[in-house]
């Protein structure tokens, strides 16, 4: 099988840690354990807005980058 690397971020279905740094194949990917509609992380999605909010609120920044696609297929984060 063609090995395709995804950076999928699954809101908790991937154990914290090594899974992010390993090559995760689409076939390995399940579903988020969080029910649809439940509150998750309140992500800012541009650096500019995040930095402005961090400066405003004096909160440190939890930075993450990942691909919002898998094998070029959208609707995956």
């Amino acid at each position, binding site marked *: 099988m063609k090995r395709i690397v995804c950076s999928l971020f699954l809101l908790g279905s991937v154990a914290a840690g090594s899974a*992010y740094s390993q090559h995760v194949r*689409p076939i390995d*990917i399940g579903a*988020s354990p969080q029910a649809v*509609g*439940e509150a998750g992380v309140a992500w800012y999605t541009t650096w500019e807005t995040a930095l402005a909010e*961090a400066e405003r609120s*004096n909160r440190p920044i*939890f930075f993450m980058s990942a691909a919002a696609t898998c*094998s070029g297929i959208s609707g995956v984060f």
Partner: protein
Amino acid sequence: MFSSPEFLEAIQSFVAVRLETFESKEHEKLIRELMDGRFANTAFCILAPDGEERLTRTGRSPSQILGPDAPNRGRGNSSDEKIVAHMQEIAEGYQQRDSNGAPVLQDFHSFRQALNVAAGDQRLLLYAVTERHHADKLQSRIGSIFSYDKLAGIFHVDQSQGQNDEVWSKNVEGASPSPGYYLIEADEFGQDGKVIASFPLSTEADALEKSLQEANRIYGERVDRKVYSEHVEEGRRKDVFFENEVPYGEDRDGDGEIDHRRGRG
């Protein structure tokens, strides 16, 4: 971990930002700066509120920067506990301010990406169609309900700021150029969507919050979590493709060149 109550509580002491790695050359540049010249699909780092000072090293996973794989970590038994404990330790060094204006409202660089991310997270997307100079007014009106109150982490928010977005007008059923709040349900691949509710910009924050809560409740009851492996398989069958500005690939040795381009990211 990202859905655990402990993590979700701990991250409220931080501003959480998640960028699409391949969205733009600006993102690539920022990631390379954080990773000392390297470029990777995933990157994590904790920074001070000035966005300059790094409070952890940069890594490809939370545990590499905060957990048992990070230097000098010992508190807690599990990986998740160590990560949360380290986050709490960092947050204790900062006195949070809530009095310096309204919280900054979330935004995306493009409506196209907003729709994609909303589909990926399976969250409803609130799109505020406004005039170019309306951002401050919008923020003061509704910024707080998406940052600290009941809607935090439930929706994604994008703002038109006077831009007439082509994806919005062509790919979303019920789209309108008229100013207002439009609540959108993205399709499963995040390239199309439909407006499921709309509200005037004059809607008070409390009323908007109640309406959005109800819409989210119905959405949650109606929609099941997607199984990502099945989603990707279906996407292959349907030849779905989402192109970013930066082609997929990593530069792990930091020589400025992409090492390989297997797959499509």
